[in-house]
């Protein structure tokens, strides 16, 4: 009987044959933390140890509140900088790097066939590059820093087969919202979600990251895209480390198989206050909003900013709204500066912010007031998510956000694109 991707990776890690539903003690290849490294360092110290077991496996990237918004945040960052120095952690990225997930991949830490754990729920993102990467909590990250191992459940697997090609104005974000709307916030609970099918060769790494990122909103443990030439090309300039790609067996057992024809997917929008409250864009057409957010780890890459620039070139956004742009990383920001994308967006009236999480989790810039509505490319719209429990967040694609910003009303992007 064949093995799924997750069964193969975890069997490799523990050096014995393991199957879904077993609990294993695994040793991750790399681990990632962000601003919560401060709390983790305190938990680590409370165990009574002086030194982390393997500083070279630890990556820390500041992104949740950068630059610090208050004294509390500043102290939090300072604690992390001191800890990093004291422990000899060389893979530390300060406030000028970008959103942790994007930076982690850009810096070549997410190698195909490796096991990565991160103290953030969107660690699923690196499945785009063929890793098994899953989110964990703070205390268990402290435990890994101390012991270099953690208990993991070998997950059941779900396979999502994709065929066809997106129509103009439709993107990976719409597909992800479509799937979440169909299967619900727990549709892939605790599962490994493997993407497959002929359509993959036409899906860019950036789009794979969007899809992998959003498997967290289906409840998945991790996502997986089989590495191909696109993966290898993306990594060639980013790492000189060797890696072994891992593929599922052809006769692997899946809990569920879903099939989608990309040409049948329409633009979608998630209504407040849950990510699985998904409707066709026509249901929201004409609704007013106050703030638009383009960016974050879900949709803040160069192609996302470029689609918005294509829509907004030579035009002005509606004076009724404000548009915030958060590039996913400094690398993306620099590329978008060099190719003129940033200038087009700024000329159109967007506020260009530094790479980081921004208002996505309500801890920083761009908070909402009671009664306000935000149309966002980010990944969550829970009540209170952007800092105010009496505000609302709608989730959509970069194309929908750009076209809607032009009109000042939620608009079907196919009317323009």
């Amino acid at each position: 009987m064949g093995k799924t991707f997750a069964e193969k990776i975890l069997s490799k890690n523990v050096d014995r044959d393991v199957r879904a539903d077993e609990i294993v003690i695994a040793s991750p290849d790399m681990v990632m933390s962000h601003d919560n490294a401060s709390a983790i360092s305190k938990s680590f110290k409370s165990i009574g140890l002086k030194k982390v077991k393997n500083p070279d496996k630890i990556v820390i990237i500041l992104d949740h509140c950068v630059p610090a918004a208050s004294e509390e945040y500043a102290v939090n960052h300072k604690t992390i900088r001191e800890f990093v120095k004291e422990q000899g952690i060389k893979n530390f990225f300060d406030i000028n790097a970008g959103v942790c997930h994007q930076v982690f991949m850009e810096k070549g830490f997410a190698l195909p066939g490796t096991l990565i754990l991160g103290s953030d729920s969107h660690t699923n993102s690196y499945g785009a590059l063929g890793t098994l990467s899953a989110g964990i909590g703070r205390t268990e990250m402290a435990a890994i820093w101390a012991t270099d191992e953690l208990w993991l459940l070998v997950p059941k697997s779900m396979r999502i087969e994709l065929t066809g090609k997106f129509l103009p104005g439709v993107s990976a974000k719409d597909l992800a919202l479509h799937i979440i709307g169909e299967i619900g916030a727990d549709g892939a609970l605790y599962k490994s979600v493997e993407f497959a099918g002929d359509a993959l060769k036409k899906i860019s790494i950036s789009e794979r990251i969007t899809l992998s990122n959003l498997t967290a909103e289906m409840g998945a443990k991790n996502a997986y895209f089989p590495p191909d030439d696109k993966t290898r090309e993306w990594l060639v300039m980013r790492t000189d480390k060797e890696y072994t790609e891992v593929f599922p067996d052809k006769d692997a057992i899946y809990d569920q198989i879903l099939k989608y024809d990309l040409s049948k997917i329409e633009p979608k929008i998630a209504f407040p206050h849950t990510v699985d409250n998904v409707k066709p864009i026509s249901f929201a057409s004409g609704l007013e909003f106050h703030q638009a957010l383009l960016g974050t780890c879900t949709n803040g890459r160069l192609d996302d900013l470029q689609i918005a620039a294509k829509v907004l070139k030579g035009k002005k956004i509606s004076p009724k709204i404000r548009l915030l742009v958060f590039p996913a990383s400094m690398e993306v920001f620099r590329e978008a500066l060099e190719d003129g994308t940033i200038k087009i967006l700024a000329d159109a009236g967007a506020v260009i912010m530094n790479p980081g999480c921004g208002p996505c989790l309500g801890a920083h810039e761009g908070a909402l007031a009671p009664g306000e509505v935000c149309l966002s490319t980010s990944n969550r719209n829970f009540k209170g998510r952007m800092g105010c429990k009496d505000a609302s967040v709608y989730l959509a694609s970069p194309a929908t956000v750009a076209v809607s910003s032009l009109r000042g009303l939620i608009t079907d992007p196919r009317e323009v694109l």
Partner: protein
Amino acid sequence: MITGKVWKYGENVNTDVIFPGKYTYTITDKNEMAKHAMEDLDPSFAKEVQKGDIIVAGKNFGCGSSREQAATCLKYAGVAAIVAPSFSRIFFRNAINEGLLLIINGDSIDHIQKGDTIDIDLAKGEIKKSGKSFKFFPLPESVRGIIEDGGLIPHLKKKFATEKK
């Protein structure tokens, strides 16, 4: 045996309403976290919750952000156990690692209302409410040890102390 008064909630209770993101880096004291438990879902919870109370909720409890404070704030608010048909993966891990008892059971929830008093018999694996009983499967042995030690950090302290001897 755990006996407690019930707080009842629906499906997909997410970690943003259990513990708002705006507090994640500004509140570090666990008892202070408890004062904001369930703030954006049920403002009466933190004011009225008693030590030993039990939360009974719908499927996928704790979905969303990985923030551990969602488990921490409920534990420090005095919650003795949470009963739900399923838990979101990271919340499930965080609760175990924080030493907060989770019971996976879907049969009982329609028979239990807010304010009811229920018994949870861990030895028998049963939830009991006015004469009715509902069976649940205990958590795997390897993770039960973590809860019994009071969470992952105390569990590790014990482990390192044993290794030193």
